[in-house]
């Protein structure tokens, strides 16, 4: 078969692979653009670049998603985004946070946790809010990149009805040209997803319906 293909394009006059990528838009305020695009898709944006905003932001996320627990897989997630200190804040706990972390293999003992327990696959179906950290974000389209790595999986960010993504401001890129110049395809894990807003469909009379097979709600929290 390969020989057949080779013979078929043997005589073909090709053109050189274009070198210079076309211009992609730049923004003076990428955060504002990111927010605008995310909200256009039905996503919800929170600015928590001031760490003291975090308790209020998290409270709001939990209220909006009608959840009392957050599930996540990445051990460093909350540390990386400056959360441990915040969550130790008694005020936050007083508002009824019940934070579970989970892991297939090992018990995690992060200082921030009130409760830590082993995560079973069967629990996935009843998780109402999951959290992950975005490797990268793109202002042009309000997108975030979800990476699968060792110690994490593909399902937790897609099965629950609500998902919250932490994005660090330094990982926010301008546009897709920048993104695909630096996208670490296959370098860390087997899957990577560019997420832009909640799951949606327009298969019925082109009417937009939010929340089909994936999360109905997508929150993005921008941290510094």
């Amino acid at each position: 078969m390969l020989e057949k293909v080779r013979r078929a394009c043997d005589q073909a006059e090709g053109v050189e692979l274009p070198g210079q990528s076309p211009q992609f838009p730049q923004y003076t305020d990428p955060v504002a653009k990111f927010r605008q695009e995310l909200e256009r898709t039905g996503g919800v944006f929170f600015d928590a670049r001031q760490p003291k905003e975090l308790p209020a932001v998290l409270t709001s996320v939990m209220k909006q998603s009608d959840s009392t627990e957050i599930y996540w897989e990445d051990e460093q997630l909350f540390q990386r985004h400056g959360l441990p200190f915040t969550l130790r804040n008694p005020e936050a706990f007083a508002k009824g946070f019940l934070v579970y972390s989970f892991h297939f293999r090992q018990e995690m003992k992060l200082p921030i946790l009130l409760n830590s327990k082993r995560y079973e696959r069967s629990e996935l179906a009843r998780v109402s809010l999951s959290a992950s950290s975005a490797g990268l974000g793109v202002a042009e389209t309000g997108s975030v990149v979800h990476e699968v790595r060792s110690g994490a999986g593909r399902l937790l960010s897609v099965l629950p009805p609500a998902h919250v993504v932490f994005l660090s401001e330094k990982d926010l890129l301008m546009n897709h040209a920048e993104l695909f110049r630096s996208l670490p395809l296959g370098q860390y894990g087997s899957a990577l997803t560019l997420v832009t807003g909640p799951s949606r469909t327009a298969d019925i009379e082109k009417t937009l319906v939010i929340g089909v097979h994936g999360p109905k709600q997508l929150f993005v929290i921008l941290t510094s």
Partner: protein
Amino acid sequence: MIRISANTQAALADQKLQRNLRQTLSKTLHSRNEAVSDVPNWEELRQYARDVKTHTLSRLADYLLELEGKVSEQGGRVIWAETGQEAVQFVLDLAHEKRVAKIVKGKSMLSEEIHLNESLERAQIEAVETDLGEYIVQLATEAPSHIIAPALHKSRGEIADLFVAKLGMAPSQDAVEITKTARKLMREHFLTARIGITGVNFAVAETGTIVIVENEANVRLSVSVPEIHIALMGIEKVIPRTSDLAVFLKLLVRSATGQTMSSYVNFLNGPRRNGELDGPREFYLVLLDNGRSKILADDFLRQTLACIRCGACLNVCPVYQRIGGHAYGSTYQGPIGAILTPQLRSLEEAPEHAYASSLCGACYEVCPVKIEIPHILLRLREKVQGEKNQKAAHLPFEKLAMQVWAWVMCSPSRYARLGRWLRILQKNFEENGKLKLPFPPFNRWIKHRDLPALPARSFKELYSSSEKQP
């Protein structure tokens, strides 16, 4: 043999179909145009994408080999399938070997092309379409009528009735309720299926990455839960570099749905790796030829394979807008279907596809990779006609008629005189301003077209009379 002409009358007379087409296509066209006008260098992007495709197609064998190497390195397996039958057989054998009773499927036109579902059904393997549009047409035991929006020909009411009848949904015309029903039902399938089958939008040769674009997350689930993932791709889907994706995704998404970006773009590099908590343990990539290398061999027609299946040419086509997708009688519809079908199969099997176009050129204008569809249609018509002409008896008559016509057209007075005669003659055949000519060759011509009667006075007469009375 597929006869489009046998299907058009029914499609045109179908009031429901006409209403559904009008409503949905106008919405799609509007959002596509908005999304494109937002991009100042759209033309530059089109040319860039086309150049990448032209380059890739001229070295397709090399890029496919590179892709295979990378996929294998990551623990996936590449299957080369020369025909649809070979691809189907691979899936059947694998399902049997692993004793799989249920498969979840992401939307894949390629699987429609090779009639995978029918074969799975015959082998008593349950194949569930998980994309909402695909699921709707599967429930209705129909084929997709649009390569991006499979159930575009159905109204909300028809879909609701289908869900009530087949799934016992509580009666509701609400798109949200219908979607909820599908979500609930599909969860069960996702969690119990052991093979996930998807299509492929792009395959990046340099990294061995399979790229799948979607909105619903049904693909994300299909490639996360089942223990085996099979991705089906036509050999033309390979692109050389990751960096090219920026342009291709921008073109594809805006052209297809008018979004700035679809909800999910999946980048998959083989099966799950050590330490990952879920994902398939086996990954297979099927590379399908099924007539593509034949298209590749023709210097002009090769560009047909640059298509990224955005569906924009369907939405904008005046023929598709009127007859819908099913009338084409083939997997691929609209302008791209009109050039792809006779080439993938044969002109004998699809002799009318090249004629299902008014050659208005709108398909070329919207094509994000600048495929010269109208010219390809003409080339295919030449081929069809060439075959006919070899045994043509009507040629001497046609030649004579043309000579007479030329003679008349060369003199204004001859032309005016012919007009006067025809106006007298036509009185016997005129009906409501149209001519009914029940003898050859006109009877065949007016079967599907109107032949308007000549007006009572010619332009010349009108002009000179208006000069007299200013």
